[in-house]
């Protein structure tokens, strides 16, 4: 049934009209408000909403790892528990300290001192083991907080510690590679946004861009092989102990590329407990403290004399019966000799011979060769604190300087400079830039930078290098370096016994010496150049009897490890395995 307009009471019509008008006005207002919020104030509204649900926090990056050339971690990170406290919130410091003391193996007094410090936050103990952390949490002591933090860990302990360096309690690099590559290893802080609902629960916006919440620094892959490093350290420790020396070092380099293969120092230290060692013990002194090398430097005068054709390997040199007056002093030779060839002079490590080689060159040319081989300047290795050594200009030389430098005195060099110079002789005359970082990798292990061999300069011609190699092989075959001789490989090298300068006495000490052997092997296809240096030995006195055998022991373990066999073969078998294999092969 349809109701006509006439049947509706006029008041009702007016009321319904007002109601419709009111509703319409209401809708219009709501629409206007919505339009204002959604269109005009859209950006501001979105910003406010984001502020309410989003929280931005700064995430510290995970420090990059340091790996050996095979990819084995030498420095990495582990999560460790750390106990902190807010002193203002610790209600009873005495009671809290007494409760913690047996768990942390600390005195109550010391802990109370930490808990009553005038600071907003103090670190009580770091790191603490997981069970201890759980026990402390169970105590529910007010003001204490157990946190999980990233801690630097060196899984191989003392291995390569002087090269790796160490990172401090805040994971900042404080020495060695850790310090040198701090920026790369540390990475950058990341601002990470979390979404939170009204209950404070975090959630991820599925349409959001995927990202790593915890950023990571770059990892570094070294040229060092942990097994070779271990062999070098083990043999070095053995020779230092045997000779009752003060310290020692081994630096091993690939002469063809300049890659550092091992760098060992003794005594060593554990970077996991770096606080227990002094700065001096942690210092890579072979890089920072140059020394007078003694006879190992004679290779420069010899190479220069051959290169300049002022002498040949067969040139006869008069030995002055083992003594030679120089600027008012007498230089002695270990063995008296009248005439000797150039090669014999080097094989016998004759001081008189070396002086005559340098004399034949003259000061300027000799200086030029010293510079050409890299002495008196940094090698440019990517490690902190490298010393350039000390080599003064010929204009400042005294009447004795030429002779002294020819014998390895009045000049200070680093072991790395010596290894670099010997590598130039091994590789045909090229001075290569030593490097220890093979590549820089991102957190997924993808190399972002790969270092490659870099020639600094040519020091001598390849023909001269070959002549020098043969002469240095003679040093090992029949000269002072006989104890470095390997049965299976051809070895070339030079011994060195340098008297240390006694500042108090103002003269060279007769008892304190640095003995060394600098060599490379195999001669026909050099794979390693190595310096073994032993500081202040008390049993034995010469490089040939202390350092040369150590060179031999390291080389005879390392070369087979690399699969290097005489004649270029690449298989090694023990005697028993060989017998077994041979018989089986015959049966087959």
């Amino acid at each position, binding site marked *: 049934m349809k109701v006509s307009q006439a049947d509706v009471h006029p008041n009702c019509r007016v009321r319904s009209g007002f109601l419709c008008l009111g509703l319409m006005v209401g809708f219009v207002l709501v629409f206007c408000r919505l339009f204002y919020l959604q269109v005009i104030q859209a950006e501001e509204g979105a910003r406010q909403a984001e502020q309410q649900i989003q929280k931005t926090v700064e995430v510290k990056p995970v420090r990059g790892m340091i790996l050996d050339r095979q990819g084995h*971690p030498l420095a990495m990170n582990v999560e460790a528990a750390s106990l902190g406290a807010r002193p203002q919130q610790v209600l009873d410091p005495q009671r809290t300290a007494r409760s913690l003391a047996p768990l942390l193996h600390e005195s109550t007094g010391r802990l109370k001192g930490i808990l009553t410090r005038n600071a907003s936050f103090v670190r009580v103990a770091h790191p603490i083991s997981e069970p201890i952390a759980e026990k402390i949490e169970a105590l529910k002591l007010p003001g204490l907080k157990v946190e999980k933090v990233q801690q630097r860990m060196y899984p191989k302990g003392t291995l390569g510690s002087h090269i790796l360096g160490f990172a401090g309690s805040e994971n900042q690099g404080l020495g060695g590679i850790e310090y040198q590559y701090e920026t790369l290893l540390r990475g950058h802080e990341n601002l990470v946004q979390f979404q939170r609902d009204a209950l404070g629960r975090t959630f991820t916006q599925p349409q959001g861009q995927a990202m790593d919440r*915890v950023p990571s620094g770059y990892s570094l892959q070294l040229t060092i092989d942990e097994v070779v490093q*271990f062999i070098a350290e083990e043999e070095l420790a053995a020779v230092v102990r045997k000779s009752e020396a003060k310290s020692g070092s081994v630096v091993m380099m690939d002469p063809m590329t300049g890659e550092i293969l091992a760098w060992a120092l003794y005594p060593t230290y554990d970077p996991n407990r770096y606080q227990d060692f002094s700065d001096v013990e942690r210092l890579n002194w072979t890089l920072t403290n140059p020394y007078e090398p003694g006879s190992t430097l004679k290779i420069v005068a010899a190479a220069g004399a051959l290169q300049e054709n002022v002498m040949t390997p067969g040139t006869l040199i008069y030995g002055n019966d083992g003594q030679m007056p120089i600027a008012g002093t007498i230089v002695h030779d270990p063995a008296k000799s009248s005439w000797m060839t150039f090669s014999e002079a080097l094989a016998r490590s004759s001081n008189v011979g070396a002086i005559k080689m340098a004399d034949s060159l003259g000061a300027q040319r000799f200086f030029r060769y010293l510079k050409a081989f890299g002495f008196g300047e940094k090698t440019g290795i990517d490690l902190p604190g490298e010393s350039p050594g000390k080599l003064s200009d010929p204009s400042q030389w005294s009447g004795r300087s030429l002779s002294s430098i020819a014998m390895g005195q009045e000049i200070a060099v680093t072991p790395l400079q010596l290894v670099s110079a010997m590598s130039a002789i091994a590789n045909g005359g090229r001075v290569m830039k030593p490097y220890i970082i093979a590549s820089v990798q991102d957190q997924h292990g993808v190399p972002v930078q790969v270092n490659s061999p870099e020639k600094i300069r040519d020091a001598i011609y390849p023909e001269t290098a070959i002549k020098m190699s043969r002469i240095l092989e003679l040093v090992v075959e029949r000269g002072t370096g006989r104890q470095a001789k390997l049965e299976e490989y051809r070895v070339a090298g030079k011994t060195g016994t340098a008297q240390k300068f006694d500042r108090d006495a103002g003269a060279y000490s007769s008892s304190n010496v640095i003995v060394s052997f600098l060599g490379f092997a195999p001669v026909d296809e050099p794979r390693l150049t190595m310096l073994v240096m032993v500081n202040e030995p008390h049993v034995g006195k010469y490089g040939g009897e202390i350092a040369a055998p150590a060179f031999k022991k390291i080389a005879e373990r390392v070369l087979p490890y690399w699969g290097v066999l005489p004649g270029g073969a690449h298989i090694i078998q023990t005697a028993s395995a060989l017998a077994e294999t041979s018989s089986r092969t015959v049966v087959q």
Partner: protein
Amino acid sequence: MKKPVILILTMLLGVWCFIYVGINVDMWRLGYELEGLEGQRAELKRQHEALQAQISKLMDPQQIARRAAQQLGFTAPREGQVVMISLDALPPLETGSADPVQLVQNFLDSQPEVP
């Protein structure tokens, strides 16, 4: 004619709203799920790192050498115990191969059956 069209349009709008709201609710649910999985991933990564650290410690050449010597009684080979074979020194085998060491290598690689 107009009424069914409006009805259909209203129904379609309703369905669209229902789907739109459903998708959004599902996305929020997935967001929470993702967050949970992210937490699991972080925990697994932490465990992985701890295990990697343990492996690295166990593979420390110093530790291996110490254990080999102390627990197994291994010693470094004495002089003469390890024989180095030069390729030139080996006589040619009767098998017809020109390179005896190559044969040795093949043998080691393939491990053939020995009668």
